[in-house]
């Protein structure tokens, strides 16, 4: 872990990123002052309940949304660092080739009127306008084989494929430009367990082969634990904890992480769940609580939590947490077998 932290290896650095959605009635801070770094070749998992802002965060990073505040520093393949929030059009075009996204729903993310070949080749045709046809064809075929699709299927339309195969098409489309950073937004959530295992294995193999960096957004904690090197936990737009995966799962420092981990059903009837109940519901993000956002549902809550805002600090080596009581309470994780 340590050697990955050196500055040259950092591929993505998000600093105080916020995204506000405004309407006449309310301003919602979907992402609120989030900071973290991702090293080259790592998989960073982002977890949290629905509505916590994890998808918005991913979309800000690929610049599908324009963030309201903060910086997204990305180190390109040639070593120069760009602030994606503040970048000229030409450089952005270059970055688009390096940062790709895999979407959640393999049924709605593929155009039903395009053949699989058209779908996978579209990024090539858009980004390399003068690439010869034969070259495109060869690249697409190569990629199809890599993700486990039979190249003879390329002339078919998406409806002829099963969910797992469609997700492979989505992955091939993201990889055909040989990107460096991939944002996977719930990339395996819509798939059946056995197919999920196939796709997770595929993502891991491709990562090794192509030296990819993943930002893996998911609500499924067991998949995240399996695939990630580091994990960030989000609550109500804030990142409340960010740490190497095994540290976070074995010994969380934030009460929300503790409650979240305790709620994961474990596929072993011998282990009985010791759930730490969360009282109440997620507060309305348009009217967020004062002080620490989590204080309304936290069982450790003290006076300071209700009034004072909480900072995101490094409590231990590369283990960040946003909790006033980080030095006072001792929390429970999931016992590790290894």
């Amino acid at each position, binding site marked *: 872990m340590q050697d990955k932290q050196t500055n040259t290896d950092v591929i993505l650095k998000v600093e105080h990123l916020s995204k506000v959605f405004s309407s006449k009635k309310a301003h919602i801070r979907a992402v609120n002052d989030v900071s973290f770094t991702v090293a080259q070749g790592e998989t960073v998992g982002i977890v949290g309940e629905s509505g916590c802002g994890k998808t918005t965060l991913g979309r800000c990073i690929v610049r599908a949304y324009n963030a309201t505040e903060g910086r997204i520093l990305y180190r390109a393949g040639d070593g120069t660092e760009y602030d994606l929030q503040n970048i000229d059009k030409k450089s952005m075009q270059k970055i688009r080739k390096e940062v790709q996204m895999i979407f959640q729903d393999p049924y709605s993310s593929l155009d039903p009127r395009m053949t699989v070949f058209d779908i996978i080749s579209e990024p090539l045709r858009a980004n390399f306008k003068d690439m010869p046809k034969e070259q495109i064809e060869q690249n697409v075929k190569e990629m199809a084989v890599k993700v486990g699709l039979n190249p003879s299927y390329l002339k078919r339309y998406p409806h002829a494929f099963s969910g797992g195969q469609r997700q492979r098409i989505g992955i091939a489309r993201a990889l055909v430009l040989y990107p460096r950073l991939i944002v996977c937004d719930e990339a395996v959530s819509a798939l059946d367990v*056995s197919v999920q295992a196939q796709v997770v294995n595929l993502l891991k193999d491709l990562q090794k082969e192509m030296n990819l960096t993943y930002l893996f957004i998911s609500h499924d904690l067991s998949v995240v634990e399996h695939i990630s090197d580091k994990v960030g936990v989000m609550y109500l737009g804030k990142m409340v904890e960010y740490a190497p995966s095994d540290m976070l799962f074995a010994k969380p420092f934030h009460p929300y992480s503790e*409650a979240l981990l305790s709620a994961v059903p*474990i596929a072993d*009837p011998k282990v009985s769940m010791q759930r730490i109940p969360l009282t109440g519901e997620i507060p309305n993000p348009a009217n967020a609580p004062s002080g620490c956002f989590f204080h309304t549902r936290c069982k450790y809550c003290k006076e300071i939590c209700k009034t004072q805002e909480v900072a995101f600090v490094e409590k231990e080596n590369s283990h960040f947490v946003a909790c006033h009581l980080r030095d006072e309470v001792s929390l429970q994780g999931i016992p590790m077998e290894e």
Partner: protein
Amino acid sequence: MQPTHTNKRGEEMGMDEKPSVLSVENLEISIKLEEGLLMPVRGVNFKLYENETLGLVGESGCGKSLTCKSILSINEKRCNTTGTIAFTDKNDTTLNLLDLKFNSKEIRDIRGNRISMIFQEPMSAFSPLFTVGYQMVESVYLHITRNKKQAKDLVLSSLRKVGIADPEKRYTQYPHEFSGGMLQRALIAMALLCNPRILIADEPTTALDVTIQAQILELLKQLQKDYGMSILYITHDLGTVAQMCDRVAVMYLGRVVETATVQDIFQNPVHPYTQGLIGSVHKIGGAKERLFSIEGNVPLAMNLEDRCSFYDRCIRKDTKICCNKEPQLTQVGDEHFAACYQPEIKARGGSQSAG
């Protein structure tokens, strides 16, 4: 444990002392399509005992939802259903639900009353046009009482029981004013209004977050104790199965391929499909080795050859043994049945290496 082979069908063996609430035998569902005859359910056998939770596990397209809907006969009319579904009520009268006429008074007396169901998407299970209270009280009027005051009180107490605060206010609210978890609670409250004998839960927590999921599962367990009902729990999520169920029936391509107690399913699975399913789930805290994955895809249930339906994807397939006939459920252990010609007990499905 050495597997003992018998030729008798699993469900008929030695467990008949226990009173079963629901007994499904040779259930077959076929749908005529232009391309041919689709057989999504091909001879399903299982029994549900009193006060137990039976998990019906399988991937999408294995026929688990159709099986459950046929219990309440709410399948589409074009589904041709044969077999028996014997339902035994409290007063020991047994009824074959498939004998009842489509939408007859008899089946409507059972539906929502003796057997109720909760659905996957609470948001689409409620109509957005009516208040939650109005939709709940409907089933009380139908099955219990026409007295308005009594009916409302019954609904309110049911809402209170599933942990909904301020039920008077909730009674007059519309579904969009509820959060997903709250609405699922309301759906459960509605299913329990008539004190049913069987509750069918079709993936009740798939649409919910983990923290809410844990709450709902705990609630279901508690209510099962309070009401003394049997739960048929349908899911593809093995994590919740381990926490919820007493026994498990694993389905593949319209057939039950293995039934056992929940401990046996997870510790000594014998069918290669069950082993594969368990191996493909990562256990938090476990070793981070490569996930086991079952090769290939589920075939379409049309024009199937008369051989083991899992043959194409099986790691133990053997042309000589597996290609003759579809294997039947045979006993391999105590309360443990599998439909496989080469049942093999493996120490833990999760610890096998890459395939």
